[in-house]
């Protein structure tokens, strides 16, 4: 991918929904903003991560808070720019390259709008390889790169600059400010040099979202199996196929937690799979049997017929679904990575085993 135009957005946001692993928010608002910023003929230059100059000044542009709020209180449009400008003022340097914080969901398309408005290049990379709920859950944290200084901006022209002692504190303080700003705020964070970004970021993320999205759309066009197309494009394992027979939700400390029970059909007839979630899907476990995937690997629930990713908010009795498991970025599998985003961080009493090992015997897959 060398540039993004308005015509690429639908494909990209479909792939981003897949990589959201059940969360990340609806890319719709980000897509509308990007479409408006790009106009009919505009495009954003996309730079491959290895091609970024070492002395580039890179920063992420993202939105923090509740996607539901953003659907009502739409952005003014200047907030992402204001956040980057506030960060630049603090750094005393111009940001040269824009980056995505996460490739899953809303934050995949929003930086396209930011880059288009500023006329700056976007790097084909992200910091999660999926969607995660908190700022510190970013690969640069593993390299000791600070999320702060972080700048937050709202619709009214307020901006806040936070300098925190570590990335957990950045998350905590930024979350508080976000709630005061109306539960959704635009942020600029993780400023770093091109040389640092090449080590700390996950390269090829937008290309990946684009290729997953286009594989699903292409399969639909030629009446092929969109699930199989998505599986091949993402390097996923097919975990389970069946019908949703129960969805349980509860609010816990403000998080939408819950679980969904899927009764198997076809090759999985007779078995049941429980997927637990907290905004994103966290764990897939066979009923009365072993765990077959956990966070940080991606657990993606797709509508079997269309290959449309189903978010945790949309899960409903009767959906015919296929569950795929996608290996996460290898850095999440290090002890430090698992401390940030492993199953125990999310309160699950289970050790992480990479999905490849859980499915090593399963030669039919992947």
């Amino acid at each position, binding site marked *: 991918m060398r540039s993004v135009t308005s015509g690429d957005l639908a494909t990209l946001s479909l792939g981003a929904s897949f990589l959201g692993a059940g969360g990340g928010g609806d890319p719709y608002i980000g897509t509308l903003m990007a479409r408006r910023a790009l106009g009919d003929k505009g495009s954003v230059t996309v730079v491959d991560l290895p091609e970024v100059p070492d002395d580039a000044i890179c920063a992420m542009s993202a939105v923090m808070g509740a996607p539901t709020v953003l659907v009502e209180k*739409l952005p003014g449009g200047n907030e992402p720019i204001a956040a980057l400008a506030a960060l630049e003022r603090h750094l005393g340097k111009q940001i040269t390259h824009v980056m995505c914080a996460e490739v899953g969901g809303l934050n995949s398309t929003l930086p396209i709008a930011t880059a288009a408005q500023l006329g700056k290049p976007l790097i084909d990379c992200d910091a999660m390889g999926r969607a995660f709920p908190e700022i510190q859950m970013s690969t640069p944290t593993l390299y000791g790169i600070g999320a702060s200084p972080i700048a937050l901006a709202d619709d009214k022209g307020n901006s806040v600059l936070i300098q925190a002692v570590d990335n957990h504190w950045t998350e905590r303080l930024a979350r508080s400010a976000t709630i005061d700003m109306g539960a959704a705020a635009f942020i600029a964070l993780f400023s770093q040099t091109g040389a640092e970004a090449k080590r700390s970021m996950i390269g090829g993320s937008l290309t990946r979202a684009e290729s997953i999205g286009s594989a699903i759309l292409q399969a639909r066009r030629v009446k092929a199996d969109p699930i199989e197309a998505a599986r091949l494009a993402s390097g996923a394992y097919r975990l389970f196929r069946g019908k949703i027979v129960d969805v349980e939700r509860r609010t816990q400390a403000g998080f939408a937690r819950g679980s969904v029970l899927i009764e198997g059909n076809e090759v999985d007839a007779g078995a049941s799979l429980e997927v637990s979630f907290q905004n994103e899907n966290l764990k897939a476990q066979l009923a009365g049997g072993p765990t077959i995937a956990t966070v940080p690997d991606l657990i993606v629930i797709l509508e079997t017929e269309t290959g449309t990713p189903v978010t945790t908010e949309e899960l409903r009795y009767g959906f015919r679904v296929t569950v795929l498991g996608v290996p996460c970025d290898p850095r999440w599998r290090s002890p430090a990575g698992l401390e940030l985003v492993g199953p125990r961080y999310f309160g699950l009493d289970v050790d992480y085993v990479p999905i490849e090992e859980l499915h090593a015997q399963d030669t039919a897959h992947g």
Partner: protein
Amino acid sequence: MRRLRIGVDVGGTNTDAVVIAGRRVITFAKRPTTADVLTGIVDALSQVLGEVEASDVDALMIGTTHFTNAVVEANDLARTGVVRLAGSATRAVPPMTDWPPAIRAAVGGDVHYVSGGYEYDGRQIGPIDFDEIARVGRTLAAAGITGVAVTGVFSPVRSDQENQAAQVLQAAAPGLLVSRSTEIGRLGLIERENATILNAALRPLAARIVDAFEGAVASLGIDDATLYLSQNDGTLMGADHTRSYPVATFASGPTNSMRGAAFLSDETDCAVIDVGGTTTDVGILRHGFPREAPLAVDIGGIRTNFRMPDLVSIGIGGGSIVRDDEQVTVGPDSVGHRLTSEALVFGGRTLTATDVAVAGGLARVGDPERVEGLDVALVREALAVIEDQVAGALDRMKTGPDPIPVVLVGGGSIILGDGLTGASTIVKPDHSSVANAIGAALAQVGGHADRIVTYGTGSRREALQKVTGEAQRRCIEAGARPDSVKVVDLDEVPLAYLPSNAVRVSARTVGDLP
């Protein structure tokens, strides 16, 4: 004296009218829908009124497509002002961004962003500026614009600013018709604003249509009858209400049809399976109302947040073509309306679902002798395929694993037997071909409220009561007898990524007509 209600439903092909006394169908009529819609309605009404005493008619309920048609055809839409109470928020997505150009051109869209709006928790983004709004009113009046849509950020959470802005606009420009978004839609600014703009653009037409209906009522000699119109959620509104909220009539047809089926069968919590010539629709009734689809409806290519009934449609109907290749298949192609000439039992040459139903002894239509020679195994297999597919669709719509009652309607329903996997009972009511008009005739009045509330310690009950109270108030305002109003639906959805116990609560109420 018998107290009669007449229900009229305008469909794509036919306009149906039905006369109801209490819970009994007295008579009904089916007339072709006309291009002007009104003529078809008067035709159908005239026919049923020939069979009853006009002075016995208490109420006339009309489900019409006038307003949907006006939008789709970009016809009869008035030029409209658009006011957003948002401060500097929301400008990334201007009003009417994704609208089809023809409708946008018809509505014009004189857009004004003004101060105001709320945050999710009811705090003000900023106060409204009375002078600024008065200036907008005068500007609109000077441009000859007579309707305006006012939409405030998070107005479903707090409506004060929208109400104040409406008063100021009317004071500054007497005669200006103001539509407030909080009265029209739910959370989701773009969709609510779209519906509000369409509403404002339809109000002059609404006044003419309601006048025409009232004229027709008088000319048909039923001037004692109160006139109501069907709304998309299956409830009614009075004629005066319609002048102010024409947009609420959008997409009322499918809802009327499902509610009519429920009435005919006396079920309030059930599945409705409507078998037509080509397709079968399966929907779910909960407390007598259709479960809503999760996705919003497009009207003429414009996103709104009106909900259609949640339906799953499969390619099985009375005219579905049956084939015996490597395995027996039924549909999705169908002989459609040519059933009565192409099916074997009607002397045709195509093997259809109706033919196997007759051969299998499920139905008696046409000439059964013409299918006597059919292979017994083929008939059995084809009927199994039909049942399998319909049972599969039913299973997708159910909310739990237990079997539920099923109401079977539609001309094609003869292709199904008395048993269906997933169904606890199957009812095939009479008069199911005019279920839509019956649904209109028997509808109740409804109210709806949708808010984001923050639960503090122990205040959940209070918060829920506030939302249900709002829905009850609206139901009474729409004409319900206060003592009959009850809550039929209460939904709580926690907001993701927001650690502050904020929950979106929506409540729906219904009540009886006086």
